[in-house]
């Protein structure tokens, strides 16, 4: 394999890897505050992209993306308030089934609004054939956008959780809900907030990836599976783990194309998921004790 080709694969891997990582972080935020896996996470990504594409008819691109993120955050809050909040001491399994229902419902709503056609946002800079040469490989500027925005999101989320008072409260809820109540924190609001946050970062991911991967009403399911694989791989609840695992999975998938046919790409990621579940069920970076403390 030539160097140029390797770099080309690597960049493709990093692009998809960043997107998987962002979806996985969305899973983690909700998992940390509620202990559930929100299978509608992929739908947040879809809504983000689709809404931005529609809004683009009325306003410039940056504003359309911003509004799409805000609207998706509202959708996230609405979903939590309508379907999760009023449940009294719900079992984890019940909540997970509810999120699967929400995912199906969202897809149906989307197909009614937007139809089955495949759409996409325009390239943020340049067009399909613009490219930047890097060591002989040719990289689309949109790839840079995806990588940079994803990196920025991870850093901002890290700062938010580490240095702000609301971020600390969310971590406190994740760590010990009873103790958080003792500190005067309304844990239910924190759960709503985690849905809002997940929806927001999902929507932003949906916008930046749209020019490369296109947006369609049923794109969420595939993304949710990849994001879930990454979340498990990195250790549920660990954001740093999600980034490393996301990039790892993206790069492995990209390079796998040079060895096996493209159709087997998904099989490889699922095989990795199974392998991890057999060998290290707590994930690459999760600790066994932390996993044991969770509700199931």
């Amino acid at each position: 394999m030539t160097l140029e080709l390797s770099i080309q694969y690597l960049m493709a891997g990093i692009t998809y890897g960043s997107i998987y990582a962002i979806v996985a972080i969305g899973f983690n935020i909700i998992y940390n505050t509620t202990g559930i896996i929100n299978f509608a996470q992929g739908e947040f990504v879809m809504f983000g992209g689709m809404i931005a594409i529609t809004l683009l008819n009325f306003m410039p691109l940056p504003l359309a993306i911003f509004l799409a993120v805000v609207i998706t955050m509202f959708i996230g809050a609405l979903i939590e308030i309508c379907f999760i909040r009023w449940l009294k001491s719900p079992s984890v399994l019940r909540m997970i089934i509810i999120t699967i229902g929400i995912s199906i419902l969202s897809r149906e709503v989307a197909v009614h609004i937007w139809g089955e056609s495949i759409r996409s946002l325009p390239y943020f800079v340049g067009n399909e054939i613009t490219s930047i040469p890097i060591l002989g490989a040719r990289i689309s500027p949109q790839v840079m956008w995806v990588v940079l925005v994803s990196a920025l999101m991870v850093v901002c989320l890290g700062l938010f959780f580490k240095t702000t008072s609301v971020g600390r409260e969310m971590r406190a809820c994740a760590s010990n809900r009873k103790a958080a109540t003792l500190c005067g924190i309304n844990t239910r609001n924190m759960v709503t907030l985690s849905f809002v946050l997940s929806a927001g970062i999902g929507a932003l991911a949906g916008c930046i990836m749209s020019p490369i991967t296109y947006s369609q009403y049923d794109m969420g399911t595939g993304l949710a599976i990849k994001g879930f694989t990454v979340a498990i791989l990195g250790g549920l609840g660990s954001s740093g783990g999600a980034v490393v695992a996301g990039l790892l999975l993206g790069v492995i998938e990209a390079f796998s194309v040079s060895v096996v046919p493209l159709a087997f790409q998904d099989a490889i990621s699922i095989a990795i998921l199974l392998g991890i579940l057999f060998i290290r069920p707590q994930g690459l970076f999760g600790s066994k004790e932390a996993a044991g403390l969770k509700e199931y």
Partner: protein
Amino acid sequence: MALLELKQLHKRFGGLHAVNDVSFQVEPGQIKAVIGPNGAGKTTLFNMISGTFPATSGNVLFQGRELQGKKPFQVASLGMARTYQNIKMFSGMTALENVMVGRHVQSQAGFLASMFRMPWTWKEERDIRDKSMELLTLLEIEEHAHTDAASLAFGQQRAVELARALALEPSLLLLDEPAAGLNIYETAEVGRLITKIRDLGITVLLVEHDMSLVMDISDEIVVLCFGEKIAEDVPTAIQQDPEVIKIYLGEE
């Protein structure tokens, strides 16, 4: 006016009268202890006061305000902090961060402001950090401020938990068996810290099994037995009370 007033508090679990017609008052600035044999209803009483579950009947008045029907997080933000028998730390966070979470009630910064790190939140963030550090210093564990709270020794975790409760700036502190699981030396330490807290003007109501601690630090003691209040007096009088001696030592 009493800081906390319990009026004919009842709690039934099915046919069991866990707490039966208990009334007493907690005056500001005192340390009051609730003692009694296992199953006397002490923790049930605490849970009703802090809003964990509602009383079957009766009233809890805090600073003249009815607390029945309020949720635990609301009770906490009214200025009543509590600790549990088994320590509840935020693992994965440092001792200092644990205390900083407790300052949340005092924090004004909204979600959006702190999301975007507005300038006015920086100062507040610094204030919260300084104040939390002060509390850790007060409880003499400032050297462990940056250690993961879950990896501290048991006695030190107790102190962090006390600091976190104090971060709410409570007027009343409820302590559920603060000496549980501590050795004699650590128990004496906790007793000293509790009196230190009282001297700051914070009223303390505690449930405790350790008699040496209770007799040492309490200003007044309430004795519960099978859900009923059988005595309420100063420690020296409680030690002489024939009824109390009977339930603790048995009849001759």
